[in-house]
Structures are given as structure tokens and as C-alpha cells.
């Protein structure tokens, strides 16, 4: 595993992201599982982080940390970790097999590179706070990234955590919201609206930016610019599309749940790998 990133080529990373989108679609289909839409929306963010922005290296003290608060996108994280050499890609076949560590929600036990187990929303940012505070107390300079869903942003605990990070000026902390506009049971605007989401983070004391969460060059540039303001944690609202990259899955609620059939996996492959 390389432990630092040379200057990343956005086009190359975008191709990687699409290849991993196919991998994840295949994993979820094979396991007859769900959340494919969430995995596809977050993929560019994760590839930008692991392929371009983060200092990698499982177990290294100075590595950047990443907590996937939206633990239901675990399959996407597993595929990204395999891609960047944390474990052999063949192990992805264990996904959801009985007795395997590859659980549907992010699991740290037995999987190199997974910093923390998640799955219940609203936990990741607090844990990231603790990691960032530990780093600062020890005078370390690593950054702590956390990726949130809209569901995370509806949990009160996330806003407790947001206040804490701003109050304690945890500037090593970068929170990316995968803002794909669809949640479990409908459109976010119809269920429990978050708008104005960037203003909420701003008001909580975070330096906040918006980005097209599928524009790899913009993601790399914005993430690399964190902290956006000295002495403040950084929030990046990444505007994404649920099911991104597979035309018949894009912006469709049902792909929060539905298992892709083998035919649909084949169709997704054509779109993603062409």
C-alpha cells in the first residue's frame, strides 16, 4: 500500500470511482442486499478522499482518519479500501457471507482501514470529535474526515457534535455531507427538510462550502483546501445524486432498498465501465 498520494488525476479517479460503483453494485446484487443508491452517491467522495486527499496507512499514527457516519454505505467503503490496498479485493466476495466481517453496516473488527463501526445515524461526528481532540491534545497534525448522510443531519446528536467541534475549534476536522436529497422513505424536503443546510453548519460555527459531489476535480481541490478557515472545523456540503452513474437508478427512492438483478448489474456495467 502506498502511504501517500502523488498528485491525483481527477479523470483517472473518476474512472476508478465508476469501476468501484460497478464493484459495489455487483457485491450488493450477489448478497441480495440494499443501499446501492447510497453507495453510488458517496463513491466520488470516498475515492477523492482515499485516492487523492488523505494520508493513508492502516495503523500509522500520522494517518488521516475517516469515519463513515453513514454506515449503510459500508459496501462502498469496503470497495474503496480494497482498491487502495488495505486488503485483497478478493475478500469483497465475503460481503454479507455468514461469519464474515464484511457486515452491511461499517465494521471495524477484522477489516483493515475501517476506523470505527457505524450504522446507527448520528454517531460518526462525535467519535470524530474525540479523535480530533485526542490528536490536538497530543500535538499531532493528522486530519479527521467524516462523511455524513442527510439522516445523520436529522439526528440531534449530530448537532451536539457540531457545536462541540466549533466551540473547541477542532480545525483538523472535515465533515462531508453526502447530500443526495433522498432518504429512507422519501425526498428529504418532504420528510424532514434540511434547507438551508449550509447555513445550518455555518451557524453552528463551521467554515462551510458547497461542491458538486460528482465533480472529481472540484472535490479534490475543495477537500485539499481544508481547513477552509483557520481555527474552525470545515463542513463540505457535497451535492450528489442517489444512484449516480446508473441511469435507471439515479434519483430514485426505490434504489435505497432494491436489490439489483443480474440483468441490472449487467446494464450498470455497460454504463459504468464504458
Amino acid at each position, binding site marked *: 500500500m502506498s502511504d501517500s498520494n502523488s498528485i491525483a488525476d481527477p479523470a483517472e479517479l473518476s474512472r476508478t470511482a465508476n469501476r468501484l460503483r460497478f464493484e459495489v453494485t455487483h457485491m450488493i446484487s450477489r448478497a441480495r442486499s440494499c443501499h446501492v443508491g447510497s453507495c453510488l452517491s458517496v463513491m466520488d467522495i470516498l475515492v477523492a478522499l482515499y485516492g487523492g486527499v488523505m494520508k493513508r496507512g492502516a495503523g500509522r499514527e500520522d494517518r488521516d482518519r475517516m469515519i463513515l457516519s453513514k454506515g449503510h454505505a459500508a459496501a462502498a467503503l469496503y470497495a474503496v479500501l480494497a482498491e487502495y490496498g488495505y486488503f485483497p479485493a478478493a475478500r469483497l466476495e465475503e460481503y454479507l457471507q455468514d461469519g464474515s466481517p464484511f457486515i452491511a453496516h461499517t465494521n*471495524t473488527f477484522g477489516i483493515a482501514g475501517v*476506523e*470505527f*463501526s457505524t*450504522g*446507527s445515524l*448520528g*454517531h460518526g*461526528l*462525535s*467519535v*470524530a*470529535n*474525540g*479523535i*480530533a*481532540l*485526542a*490528536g490536538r*491534545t*497530543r500535538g499531532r497534525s493528522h486530519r479527521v474526515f467524516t462523511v455524513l448522510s442527510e439522516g445523520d443531519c436529522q439526528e*440531534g*446528536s449530530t448537532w*451536539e*457534535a457540531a*457545536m*462541540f467541534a466549533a*466551540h*473547541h475549534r477542532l480545525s483538523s476536522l472535515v465533515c462531508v455531507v453526502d447530500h443526495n436529497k433522498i432518504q429512507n422513505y422519501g425526498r428529504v424536503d418532504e420528510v424532514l427538510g434540511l434547507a438551508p443546510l449550509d447555513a445550518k453548519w455555518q451557524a453552528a460555527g463551521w467554515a462551510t462550502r458547497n461542491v458538486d459531489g460528482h465533480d472529481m476535480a472540484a472535490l479534490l481541490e475543495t477537500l485539499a483546501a481544508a481547513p477552509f478557515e483557520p481555527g474552525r472545523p470545515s463542513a463540505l456540503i457535497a451535492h450528489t445524486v442517489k444512484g449516480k452513474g446508473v441511469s435507471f437508478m439515479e434519483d430514485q427512492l426505490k434504489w435505497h432498498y432494491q436489490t439489483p438483478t443480474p440483468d441490472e448489474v449487467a446494464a450498470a456495467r455497460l454504463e459504468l465501465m464504458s
Partner: protein
Amino acid sequence: MRTAFVDELMSLARQDPAVMLLTGDLGYTVFEPFQAEFPTRYVNCGVAEANMMGTAAGLAREGFKPFVYSFIPFAIFRALEQIRIDICYHDLPVTIVGLGAGYSYGDMGATHHAVEDIAVARSLPGLCVVCPGDPWEVRCATRALASRAGPAYMRLAKRGEPIVHALETRPEFHLGRALVVQEGDEVALLATSNMLSTVVEAARKLEATHGIRPTVASMHTVKPLDADYVRRLSERCRAIVTVEEHSVLGGLGGAVCEVVADAPTRCAVHRIGIPDRFVHVSGSQGYYREQCGLTVEGIVTRTAQASRQP
């Protein structure tokens, strides 16, 4: 108990740079010396307990040993999922320190009563549940928990509790091991948390007025319970009486019943504790204890009855 805890924690923090103290905006006039001596290892997290537990988990993941302090209901119930997932599932060395056992804050109302906490904490895999019976036990437990690997919950009463274990008769303290206060005959009185001194007094009275000398032990660790000790008692006693300022469901009494149910014995278990209901009127700790028979008289009467039953 609170003062004993802070004193001990400060001496630990001097020896171990990993020890931290997080509080949910409680501990006024108590934590100031810790804050002054260890400013970077003290965090008042504000009234945001869920975040405090998650933050503690993150700190522990990075090698710190956070002690997280609040009133029991806000520590255990408010932040239960963070305790369950972030701390217990990850088996992290976080010690949750709750103040206000049972009706310690009686007149503050049901929001501040802590009568189901042991049951809830005991149900979480890997969580050590420690309910010290006097300030000396608090010191011992604090010290033991700081050098332990996994998560723990320590239940404190309030302040001003008497010292039960006199200096010259103090046994050795071990987490998970019953502390025998006195050996007796066919009845055993098992106390946990802030009922210990009342139980010791009741035992004296039983001997003086009824001629019954019960075995008395402090079950400071409710999980892992000293099951061997309970099993041995059940083999030689007619009755075990458990006493706790906690619901009769799922606390010490429940834990003892679970052990005795599996033991080949006819020993009866009598649980003295709080009935399974809320209270909706104002009351002092003494008033509520009276209502539940958690008094010297109540314990004497129940134990005398228990010892007479065939």
C-alpha cells in the same frame, strides 16, 4: 463519594497521562482542582451527553482513558445508544461515572431518579457495572477501573456517605469479587451501592434483637457478579436477601436470582428494592426509602421473616 472519586482520579491522572475527565456540565465546586491541574485533560462537554459519550469513544480509540461524568439518568438513559455502540461494541476503556444513585436526588423528581440504571447497564455486553458501597470502595473502584481495559459504569451516590469499611478491618478490594463484611449463619444480606451502611446497621440490629447473625457482603460489582460467591452462599443459606436502592427488576436482586436459579439449591432469594413504578409526588430520599422498606427496620423485618421460612 463524589469527593473520594475526584481525589482518586487526580492521583491517577498524575501517574497516567492518558486519564481524562469529561463532564456534562456537572461537578461545580468539585472538579475545579482537576481542571486547574490538568487543563488539557478536562473537558466540560456542556449539556450534550450523546456527543460526550461519542467523543469519549473517539478519545479512547486514540489511547486515552476518559472518565465521563454526569447525573445517572442523563449519562445512562440519554446517551444509551452511544454507550452501547460507540463504547461497548468497540470495547473501549471508557468509565461512565454516574452521580445520584436511586433516590439521592429524591426531591428533584422522577427525571433525576436513578432506579433502572443497573438493569439497563447490566444488559450491555462487556460493560462492567460497579456500585461502590462507601467512599473507600469508590477509591478502590476508581483505581481498579483506570487500569482495566474495557468499558465500565460506576454508580455513585452523592456526598457525605459514611465509611463502612473501617481502616483496620478493610479486606482486599477486587473488581468482580464480593467484599464480605461479616460471616454469619443461615441468612445472607447482600447490599450494593448506597444501601451498604444501612444493611450493616440492620445486621447489627438483627443480631441484637432477633439473635440472627446474617452474613453481610458488599456486592460492589454487579457485573460481572461474583457468581461463585453467590452459589456458595446459596448452598449453605436458607435465604439470601438482596438490598438495593434500585428497581427490583434487573438489578442486584435480579442478578442474584439468575445465579441461584441455575444452582442446585433450595435457597430462597428475597429482593428488597424499589417497586416497578414511577413516583409522582415530591419526596426526600428518606421518605422514598421508607415507602420501599429500604430502612434498617424494613430490612430487619424482611430478613427475620426470611430466616423463619422453611
